């Protein structure tokens, strides 16, 4: 007898889904709702807001910088390709080529009024140790040397070459971050370097937009494709945060498409093969679609936007949410009534949902923005899928399929007899206990861990190896390691900067350069001291200037009056006043935040962090920042914390199961525990245990517990086994794809879930075989 359809509930449900879809569309129209800066998924290292802002600003400075290397077998060939790159960048608008000449000109002009008070350590030492006669002789000799043909300041402005020496010291800061020891020549005015027989021309550029903005990434990706076509992929190297972010976004999109498509195809294939009808398939697809829409809407509502890794992870949700659809379709087909199937499955479906949502909800308590996002996405997605099954199941009427369910024969012929054989005589429980103990021992004994920040890489191997090649060719400042100075006043900051640089440079680390604010702007105390010394040794009556003029047989007063400028304190504002942008971008990040001054000292070259920390130990105003180490520490800390959270979550759920099922809770929980331990042991052994393996255990828990709950309520029967097999198979297929992902995070998820779900599918029926009657 055909049951009357009730449309009210399905319509209400569909209206809610439609509203969610509309909300997403409106939000997406107003602003980008997806982003891919993976470090924003992690909790911040504990530090003051001002320090966090300072570090963010330092990171922002480097995030805008780009480097291109265009290669050729000859300089002419490289130059020709450079011209193509230059033309393409001019047309692009997002990326602007930088000319170091702008900065040189800006520096020459900005420092001119103050050259008599700016002294490098070497110049200071010479002035202190030499007599006026010796200083005059040195200036004279310099005048006759061939090199004196090129001076930034005319002789009349700078007879003793003080300005030249000062600017020389800035050269390292003006090479676009390229180390002084890197051999750079120019060809046709463009810097180049040789790598074996290949010449590489360098182009420094600056990004106009934000590197983590997806629209900017899309434009830059397009530019890169164009450049690779123009000059040939093998002749172009590039470096910059935006390339990694774009590659990460690309990869995430591919993974989402791959996993999403794989999930979809596996669902379609299995549904058609097993049910041999489009109705159950339609129900399954509707379940998945509604679940994803509601999950996405919830994330956008709560967080404003969704990370691409969350979406990639969410694509795996499909493998979990499909459980409900499969169970419903199989049960309805068997009973012959959607309405009754809904009634029978209401409790186990609700319990399965509650256990999964409970497990995911624990993630909300962890201070991990990424984890919270994934938790919301997964929990809301599951609730949406569950509601879809109950609300829409009656519309699709899977019970009206007349054909035989495929797979049932397999259960009766092979699996059930095997399970019964193993279960009889209590062999299975003993076997399971042995496996449990062995798995636990394995986990404890073989627990190599991996908290390396490289696990967060989303940009793929190719880009990483290009980055390493560029780093080898030309050592660049480390954006992950630097020193932050802080002080109550700018003068104290500059004094601190001078002290830090002196202390660090006395270590004698070759091939390491430190660029600090005091290298560009000495403290007031230093400027005054320098000026006094210059007056004393160079410009006072009877000193070096008089002796130099005598040697040159010229009147001294005109030269003295032009070269000997009155003292005027060079402040930061004065330095940047006229030549603002060019110098501002070159200066180390220096900022007043909440009435306190902060500045970054960048480190160019490989350094021993312990030596740096040791030298800075007695300077409380200096803090050594190592972002990589901090992120690794965060991963380490939260791997343990999430592990404990997970144990707590599992324990709470287990206690709830005990309260509900009493002694029957053990066969429900035991296979789950075994699957989790085995997955953990394999992950640790194969990849080294990471935070993301621990995250994935929650997913395993959700999928595996569902199976136990359904077997417990329905028994080990053909339809329950078939539904569990279908849902487990789709999950395993999807996560098997993830195992081959280039994104370490997704790869780690894939491994744990594949092993965990596979183990659960095989082992869970064993715990219910003995008490189940033959189907």
């Amino acid at each position, binding site marked *: 007898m055909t049951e009357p359809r009730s449309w009210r509930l399905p319509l209400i449900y569909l209206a809610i889904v439609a509203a969610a879809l509309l909300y997403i569309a409106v939000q997406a129209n107003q602003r980008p709702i997806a982003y891919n800066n993976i470090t924003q998924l992690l909790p911040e290292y504990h530090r003051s807001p001002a320090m966090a802002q300072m570090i963010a600003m330092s990171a922002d400075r480097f995030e805008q910088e780009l480097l291109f290397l265009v290669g050729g077998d000859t300089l002419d060939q490289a130059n020709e390709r450079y011209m193509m790159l230059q033309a393409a960048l001019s047309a692009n608008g997002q990326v602007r080529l930088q000319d170091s000449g702008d900065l040189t000109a800006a520096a020459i002009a900005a420092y001119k009024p103050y050259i008599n008070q700016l002294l490098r350590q070497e110049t200071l030492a010479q002035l202190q140790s030499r007599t006026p006669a010796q200083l005059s002789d040195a200036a004279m000799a310099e005048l006759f040397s061939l*090199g004196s043909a090129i001076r930034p300041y005319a002789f009349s402005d700078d007879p003793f070459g003080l300005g030249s020496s000062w600017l*020389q010291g800035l050269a390292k800061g003006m090479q676009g971050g390229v180390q002084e020891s890197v051999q750079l020549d120019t060809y046709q*005015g463009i810097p180049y370097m040789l790598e074996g027989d290949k010449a590489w021309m360098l182009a420094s550029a600056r990004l106009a937009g934000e590197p983590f903005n997806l629209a900017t990434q899309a434009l830059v990706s397009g530019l890169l494709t164009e450049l690779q076509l123009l000059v040939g992929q093998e002749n172009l190297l590039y470096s910059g945060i935006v390339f990694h972010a774009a590659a990460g976004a690309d990869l995430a999109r591919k993974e989402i498409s791959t996993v999403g498509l794989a999930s979809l195809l596996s669902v379609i294939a299995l549904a058609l093969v097993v049910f041999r009808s489009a109705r159950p398939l339609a129900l399954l697809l509707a379940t998945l679609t509604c679940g994803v829409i509601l999950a996405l809407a919830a994330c956008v509502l709560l967080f404003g936007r969704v990370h691409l890794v969350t979406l990639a992870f969410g694509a795996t949700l499909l493998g979990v949410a499909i459980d409900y659809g499969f169970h419903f379709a199989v049960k309805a087909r068997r009973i012959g009534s959607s309405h009754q199937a809904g009634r029978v499955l209401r409790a186990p479906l609700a319990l399965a949902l509650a256990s999964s949502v409970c497990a995911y909800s624990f993630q909300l308590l962890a201070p991990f923005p990424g984890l919270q996002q994934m938790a919301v996405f997964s929990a809301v997605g599951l609730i949406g899928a569950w509601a879809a099954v109950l609300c829409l199941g009656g519309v699709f009427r899977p019970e009206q399929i007349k054909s035989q369910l495929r797979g049932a024969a397999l259960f009766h012929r092979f699996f059930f007899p095997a399970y019964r054989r193993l279960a009889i005589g209590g062999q299975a429980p003993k076997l399971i206990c042995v496996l449990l103990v062995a798995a636990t021992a394995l986990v404890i004994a073989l627990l190599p861990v991996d908290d390396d920040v490289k696990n967060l890489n989303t940009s793929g191997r190719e880009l990483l190896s290009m980055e390493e090649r560029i780093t080898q060719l030309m050592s660049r400042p480390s954006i992950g390691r630097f020193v932050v100075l802080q002080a109550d006043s700018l003068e104290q900051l500059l004094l601190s900067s001078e002290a830090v640089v002196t202390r660090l440079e006395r270590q004698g680390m070759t091939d390491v350069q430190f660029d600090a604010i005091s290298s560009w702007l000495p403290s007031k105390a230093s400027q005054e001291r320098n000026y006094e010394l210059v007056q004393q040794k160079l410009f006072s009556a009877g000193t070096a200037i008089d002796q130099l003029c005598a040697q040159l047989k*010229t009147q001294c007063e005109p030269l003295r009056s032009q070269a000997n400028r009155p003292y005027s304190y060079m402040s930061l504002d004065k330095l940047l006043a006229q030549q603002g942008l060019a110098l501002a971008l070159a200066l180390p990040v220096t900022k007043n935040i909440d009435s306190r001054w902060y500045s970054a000292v960048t480190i160019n070259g490989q350094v021993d962090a312990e030596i740096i920390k040791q030298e800075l130990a007695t300077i409380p105003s200096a803090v050594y920042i190592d972002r990589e180490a901090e992120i690794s520490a965060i991963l380490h800390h939260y791997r343990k914390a999430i592990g404990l959270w997970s144990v707590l979550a599992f324990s709470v759920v287990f206690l709830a199961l005990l309260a509900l099922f009493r002694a029957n809770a053990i066969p429900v929980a035991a296979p789950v525990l075994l699957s989790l331990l085995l997955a953990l042991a394999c992950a640790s052994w194969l990849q080294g245990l990471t935070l993301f393996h621990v995250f994935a255990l929650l997913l395993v828990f959700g999928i595996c517990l569902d199976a136990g709950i359904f077997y417990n309520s329905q028994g080990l029967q053909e339809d329950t086994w078939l539904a569990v097999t279908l849902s487990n198979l789709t999950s395993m297929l999807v996560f098997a794809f993830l195992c081959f992902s280039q994104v370490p995070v997704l790869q780690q998820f894939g491994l744990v879930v594949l092993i965990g779900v596979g183990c659960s599918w095989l082992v869970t029926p064993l715990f219910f075989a003995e008490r189940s009657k033959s189907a």
Partner: protein
Amino acid sequence: MKAGWLLAFCWLSLPAQADLLSEVAGQIQRTEYLSGQFQQEKHIQVLPLPLVSTGVFQYQRGEGVVWELQTPTRQTLTIDAGRGGGRAAVKGKPRDSMTGLVERLLFSVFSGDLAALQGYFSVAAKGQTSDWELQLTPLGQTVSQFIGDVRIYGGRHLSKVTIMEANGDSTVIDMSIAKASVSND
């Protein structure tokens, strides 16, 4: 009409210029050894008289240049020919500093390394192989901030270099060749 003739003249003279340039470069490159005296006059705007210095120089193909200032002060500058194509290294100074640029230019002039010169300047040739002039105009702001113009004169061998600085000062180097040997290839 006049403009048309001028344009035609310029257009026609370009290939001739390029030929002269490569001939001059080839001529210089065939020099195996060169030694002689030099007189350097540095004209500094604020000084009434030029600064005059004298000395001797020696160039050996493949090895480098020794530039020895003898009066009024003694200084020796040794420019070694670098590996891989004659890039010059100046002892005691960073290679990529502006103060090393003139030394590298000098070596390029002695060795006829047109490519090295073209790394910093656009090079134009005038005259003929027995009496030529090269005009070097800086490329890029990095060099043009310091150097306005460089001219190199010569006949069978190098004879004079003038450097006009952007700040108005200038340097004139006159060379008289005492000994030279040229290869036939």
